[in-house]
Each structure stands twice: as structure tokens, then as C-alpha cells.
């Protein structure tokens, strides 16, 4: 399949998705909103984790800042939703710049743990802030318009995906990939690694914050625990890794597939849904550690041996 055909297919898929609110039931629209937002978050993580190779656990902070930016602007200052979204995105960019500079100097697990700690710090700080409603949270005005939230989420996801498409073919993107493959070599090639990393972090932040803002207004209630939920960050990683990190559409597919599984589980088997989800994660990591994209590409040649080979290749 050449690029043009791919592009055309994607465009048709987007149009079909965009038309969904006119014929789908409210449950499906709601599932759609949640999934599109998760896909946007996965794309955000894809920029910093997939392309740049930095396993961030701080993306849920961006989501939380987006949620709180929107909520504070709307509830405390009575500003319109659009301004709130922008404010949330601004907070995220500021956070990415201020915290990114020191934290992005760390590598490997140390970066992961530093961002994990940052998300704990942010939860604790916000639950002490009067303007954020402390730990009791904020209640946003009620808007009865899931179709609007759906289209907004879709638009954000498209924007994020286009950005990643641009990244994947730009100098900037090659720089990020170089950093992922070998940061020291990238630096010696004359890439300003600090600048690139911080930019990638901020870009990830903008999309995550937009998703957070939309989510807050849609759910109408936020508190620190739900806004800075660490398991949301883990979901972003799982979806990206499952779909194929460092690819343009992989994380979106990962988000759609895993959301579908998790939604079906929580409806059908209710109380053991989390247990199954845990098992799905473990199995997926063991048998297809390079994601769905890799599976699809190679399964045709290798067949069921694919899984066996993966295990053979990665075990000690």
C-alpha cells in the first residue's frame, strides 16, 4: 500500500468517525469520546516515549494540568471553555519547560521514576491549592452535548496525528529518533538534544492537556486523584506500546483495540475486568513486545511461530 492510498483510507476513516454522532447511540458516542481522548493521550506519549525514547510517567500531569486549567478558568474565573482549554495547554507547556529542563537530563529508569514522582508531587500540591478546590475538587457547569465533545475529541486526535505525521518526516523527528537510538551520538552529530527533548515534552504536553480539558468539561467533576491518575499514564504507555511506539497510527490503533477490550470486559465480566486487563497486559508484553504493527507486518511470513520467536529472542 503506498502512502497516498494509506492517506486516503485514513481520511475516509476519519470522515466515517466524524459522522458517527448522527447515527450511533449515546453509549457508543460516549465510548467514542473516551477512546478518542485515550488515543490522543497515547499519541502525546508517542512523541516523548515512542519517538524520543523517554518513558514518561509525567504525561498524566499534563492531563491533570489541562483538566485543572480548564476547570479553574471556567469555575473560578467564569471564562469560556475555549479560554480554559488554552489556559490548560499553557500550564502544561510551562510545566514541560520548567520541569523538563532538569528532568530530561536523566535517562532510562531514572527519568521514569522522576516523572512518576513529579506526578505524585503535583497531586499533593493541587490538593492543597485553594483555587483548585483543594482535595474536594471542582464541579464544572453541565453541558448536554456529547456530540460536540465527540467532534472536539476527534479534532484533537486528528491534530495530534497530523503533528506526528509531520514529525515522522521532518528534521525535528529525525533528531528525536537519533536521540532515542543513541543520545550521545546525536549530540555529537550537532543536534541540540536538550532543545529537541524539551520541545517534544512540551508538544506531548499540549495534546495531553487538550484531552484533559475536554475530559473535565465532559465529566463535569474533577478531583486530584482522578485528574492526576497514574494508571491513566500507564494506559497511555500500554496503548502506545501495544499499537507500535514510534509509528504514526500505531498508538491510535492500540487505543481503539485496548479500549474496546477493556470496555467489553468491564461490561461483560464486570468484577474480574481488572484482573483480565492485567493478564492481557502481561501476555501482550511477553508475546508481542514490539506491538500490533510489528505483529501484522510479520505474522504473514512467520505465522504462529511469531510469538514463540519473540519469547526466544527476549528471554535470558
Amino acid at each position, binding site marked *: 500500500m503506498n502512502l497516498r492510498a494509506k492517506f486516503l483510507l485514513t481520511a475516509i476513516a476519519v470522515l466515517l468517525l466524524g459522522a458517527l454522532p448522527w447515527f450511533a447511540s449515546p453509549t457508543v458516542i460516549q465510548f467514542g469520546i473516551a477512546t478518542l481522548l485515550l488515543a490522543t493521550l497515547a499519541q502525546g506519549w508517542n512523541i516523548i*516515549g515512542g519517538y524520543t525514547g523517554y*518513558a514518561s510517567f509525567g504525561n498524566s500531569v499534563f492531563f491533570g494540568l489541562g483538566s485543572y486549567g480548564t476547570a479553574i478558568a471556567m469555575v473560578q474565573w467564569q471564562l469560556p471553555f475555549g479560554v480554559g482549554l488554552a489556559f490548560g495547554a499553557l500550564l502544561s507547556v510551562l510545566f514541560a519547560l520548567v520541569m523538563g529542563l*532538569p*528532568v530530561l*537530563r*536523566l*535517562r*532510562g*529508569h*531514572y527519568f*521514569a*521514576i*522522576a516523572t*512518576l*514522582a*513529579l506526578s*505524585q*508531587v503535583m*497531586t*499533593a*500540591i493541587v*490538593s*492543597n491549592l485553594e483555587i483548585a478546590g483543594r*482535595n474536594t475538587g471542582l464541579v464544572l457547569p453541565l453541558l448536554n452535548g456529547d456530540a460536540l465533545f465527540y467532534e472536539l475529541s476527534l479534532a484533537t486526535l486528528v491534530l495530534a496525528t497530523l503533528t506526528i505525521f509531520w514529525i515522522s518526516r521532518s528534521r525535528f523527528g529525525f533528531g528525536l529518533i537519533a536521540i532515542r537510538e543513541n543520545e550521545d551520538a546525536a549530540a555529537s552529530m550537532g543536534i541540540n538534544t536538550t532543545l529537541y527533548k524539551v520541545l517534544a515534552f512540551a508538544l506531548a504536553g499540549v495534546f495531553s492537556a487538550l484531552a484533559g480539558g475536554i475530559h473535565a468539561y465532559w465529566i463535569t467533576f474533577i478531583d486530584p486523584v482522578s485528574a492526576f491518575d*497514574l494508571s491513566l499514564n*500507564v494506559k497511555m*504507555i*500500554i496503548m502506545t*506500546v501495544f499499537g507500535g511506539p514510534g509509528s504514526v497510527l500505531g498508538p491510535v490503533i492500540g487505543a481503539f483495540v485496548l479500549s474496546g477490550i477493556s470496555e467489553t470486559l468491564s461490561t461483560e465480566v464486570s468484577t*474480574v475486568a*481488572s*484482573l483480565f*486487563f*492485567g*493478564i*492481557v*497486559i*502481561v501476555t501482550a*508484553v*511477553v508475546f508481542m*513486545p514490539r506491538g500490533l504493527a510489528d505483529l501484522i507486518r510479520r505474522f504473514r511470513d512467520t505465522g504462529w511461530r511469531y510469538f514463540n520467536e519473540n*519469547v526466544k*529472542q*527476549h*528471554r*535470558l
Partner: protein
Amino acid sequence: MQLLAQILANGVLLGGLYALMALGLALVWGVLNIVNLAHGAFIMLGAYVGYYLFTLFDMDPFVALPISMAALFCVGYLLQGGVLNLIARSAMFNTLLITFGIDVVLTQLAQILFSADYRTINPSYAGSNFMAFGVTLPWVRVLAFVVALLLTFSMWLFLLHTRLGRGIRATAQNLGAARLYGVAPKSIYAMTFGIGAALAGGAGDLYGVVSQINPYIGATLTAKSFAIAIIGGLESPLGVVVGGIFLGIVESLTALYIGPTFVDVASFGILVLVLVVRPNGLLGSTS
């Protein structure tokens, strides 16, 4: 002054337990380069072992401690040999993901097997205390502190003076070098992970004596353990003890002078600060 002395004593005693919680995490991270997000779940399981031995067989939690550790050693050994080993050479965030998945599975299994009821290990002496220099010291916490120190110290001796211990330390530096000690890397990995889990199990047993147990206590304990391991450093068990006590004191002082809702700001803020201010020292051990 009296209050400050009491608060400092509380902090130190809390720190001893913290150190034991983090010890296994630091060992596994330092040697195997696995950041084990299921560490808190191991602590939780250890607590349940202690709880059931106490409730069903009336066994004293300090007597149950070795059993708790042995049980968790088996859990850790099997998990590493059967699951984690399969992805030992996979990308870094795959190990993060898989330990997260294991954490979810263990937590959910615990809820199914043990129910979400709140449990405590409550021997008759659990609340007794003694006074020293005008400071009230709970017996159980003092004992837990001593046990934590003993375990840490024996860990240290074990790593320095046994064949397996030297093998483990060599593995931390270089996988190939480990073979020189005549231990297969595969078995070193499983042993190390098992020991890490056993230490978590011991910590869990003691945790059940001072606090309450339910299937969901793991997540916060994992986060705490990270903070301690980072602050203390991954190189030596003694560093972890220093980290634990330091964190215990900082938390107690923060609760007193700034307010109890700022405890997490302080402990995780310090964690970030340590990482950022000493990136070279800490980075040295990963590359």
C-alpha cells in the same frame, strides 16, 4: 522540645520500616535493572501471610516473619523464572509494563482470595510501649526497627561474603563477569528477584503489625519505596537504611511544621530534587 524529640523518634522508627520496604526494590533495581512496580503488591502479600498465620495458627508475627519471607521468596522466584525472564532482554518500558500488569493481577487476586475486608495483625502486645528520655516508644515499632536493621545488615554481609552474594554483585556490574563466580545468570536473576520479594514479604509482615492491611495498600508503598531507594542510592543496603530514616524524619517534621497534607509534596519533591541535583552520581550506575 519534648514534642520535637517525640516527633524525631517517631520519624526514625518509621524510617526503619521504610528502609526494609525499599531494600528489596533497591536490590532488584540495582542488580537486575528491573523497576518492579509490583513491589508494593509483594509487601501486601507478605502482610496477608503474616495475618493468616496469626489468625489461623495464633502465630506471633515475629515468628511468622521467616515464613512470610520464604513464601514471598517462592512467589518472586517463580515470577521471575516463569514470566519476567521471558522479557529480560526486551525494551525498558516493557519491564515497567509487565510489572505493572503483575501488580494488577496480584491485587485483584488478593481481593478475590482475601476479600476487601480491613485486617490487622494484632497481638496482645501490639500497642504496648515504654518511656525513654521522656519519649514514648512503641515496642512493636522498636522491634520492627531492630529487625529491619538486622535484615539489612545480613543482606550486606550476604552480598559481601557469600559466593552467591558476590555473584549477584558481579551481575549488577556485568552479566558476563557473573559466570566467573560459577553461578548461571538465569539462576542469579531468579534468586535475586526472590530475595527482593522475600524482603518485601518481611516488611509486609511487620507493616501488618503497625498498620491495617487490605488488597489495595500496595500502590502507595511502591511509591514510597521508590523515594527511599533513590534517596538512599541503589549501591548498598546501608544507603537504603539512611534513605529510609531520612525520609521518615522529613515526613514527620513536615507533618508537624507545615501540615499533614504536605507530606507527599515533601517526600516526592525530595526524590525529584535528589535525582536532579545528583544526576551524574545516580546516572553512573545505569549506563
